[in-house]
């Protein structure tokens, strides 16, 4: 796998973002913007994404088509002062978009670098000694409260990062991985420990579904001593005594 091409979904956000990354990686001068080189780099990146089955959105294809079109304009001799010169040069439009996007990215970096409440400094929790009802201001709306509820459901889990090194697993591979992890932990583990090291949300979901499937097949047991308490996973089957592939083969279920 090309090390220089690790896709972080949170970092690459759309075709403009990818294009800017490629231009900066190749050390291309924005003012010159050699279209043949830019288009080649973009198409190569797109090939990688298709290889990895990352679900190429239509806007990436639109960008690719635009770049190829601009490359073809570069190859043709420049029209000597066309009559209707009111229309802006499409290349200038793209350069302006890339510059604006680069500026936005550096501004986002600056915001990220500012002191932030909850990370660098902390405010007092107004819980103690505030006796008696007062006029309350929530400071957020229903969607904000819902976002907090969402944070609560994902408490302590790292943010989702998809990298080509961590493809989404199919069910048989998931089960083999779970067998290996459980054996490594002595055949018994707390449920969350099975995906504690998995940064990608989709992988954690796949592993969770795998646990449920394996419980259904009687390969492991799930038990919790207290309501809402931690769930213990105990391995019941030996991986060499079951046929993982056969169990999930669609025509045999």
């Amino acid at each position, binding site marked *: 796998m090309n090390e220089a091409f690790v896709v972080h979904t949170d970092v690459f956000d759309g075709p403009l973002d990818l294009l800017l990354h490629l231009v900066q990686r190749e050390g291309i001068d924005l003012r010159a913007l050699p279209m043949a080189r830019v288009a080649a780099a973009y198409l190569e990146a797109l090939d990688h994404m298709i290889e990895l089955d990352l679900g190429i959105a239509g806007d990436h294809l639109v960008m690719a088509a635009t770049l190829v079109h601009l490359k073809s304009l570069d190859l043709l001799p420049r029209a000597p002062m066309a009559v209707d010169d009111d229309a802006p040069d499409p290349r200038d439009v793209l350069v302006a978009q890339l510059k604006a996007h680069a500026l936005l990215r550096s501004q986002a970096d600056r915001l990220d670098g500012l002191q932030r409440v909850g990370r660098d400094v902390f405010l007092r929790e*107004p819980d103690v000694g505030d006796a008696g009802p*007062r006029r309350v201001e929530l400071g957020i*709306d229903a969607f904000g409260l819902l976002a907090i509820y969402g944070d609560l459901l994902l408490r302590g889990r790292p943010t989702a990062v998809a990298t080509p090194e961590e493809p989404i697993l199919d069910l048989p591979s998931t089960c083999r991985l779970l067998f290996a992890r459980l054996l490594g932990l002595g055949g018994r583990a707390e449920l969350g420990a099975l995906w504690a090291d998995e940064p990608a949300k989709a992988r954690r979901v796949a592993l969770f579904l795998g646990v449920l499937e394996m419980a259904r097949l009687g390969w492991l047991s799930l038990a919790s001593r207290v309501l809402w308490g931690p769930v213990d996973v105990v391995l019941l089957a030996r991986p060499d005594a079951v046929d993982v592939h056969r169990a999930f083969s669609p025509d045999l279920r």
Partner: protein
Amino acid sequence: MNPELPLMANARPGLLTDLEAILFAAGGPVSSRRAAEVLQLAEAEVENALGVLATRSVGRGVEVVAVAGGWLMRSAPAAAGAVAKWRDVAPIRPSRAALEVLAAVAWRQPITRAEIDALRGVDSAGPLRWLLGHGLVRAVGRRAEIGRPATYGTTDGFLTLLQLPDLGALPSIGEVG
């Protein structure tokens, strides 16, 4: 004013700063035992530093005092009048902890205290009491379980603050972008 207690000669640099910040952000009594655990220091060293902060705070607007369960940062009684006047005019905002409990109650009601604790992974007695006291949450019934624990739900005041006609108007998890 109390005579100044000396800080232990070998105290960790920055210890007073760290403890003062913890007392401020904690919002409740800080036990020297837990503070020592968090800062990975001997309890005696932490207890000594807390005492230093307490003597230094005498006569200021924010004091550090020994209470049951540890050391507490609080506004000075001498300034109680000014604080009360401030509270009369300024609205209050729930803490992040209270917002978490409110979110849990809103989407899971009726919910018990134990269920809220389990969801948050920490004790929620303080924030829940705050929400009850400010009329955003109320006890709605009891669960048919051992101990018959109380269950909580949101109030009309909660709906008014969020400008929602009824609970059915709360957005669902699927609507988050």
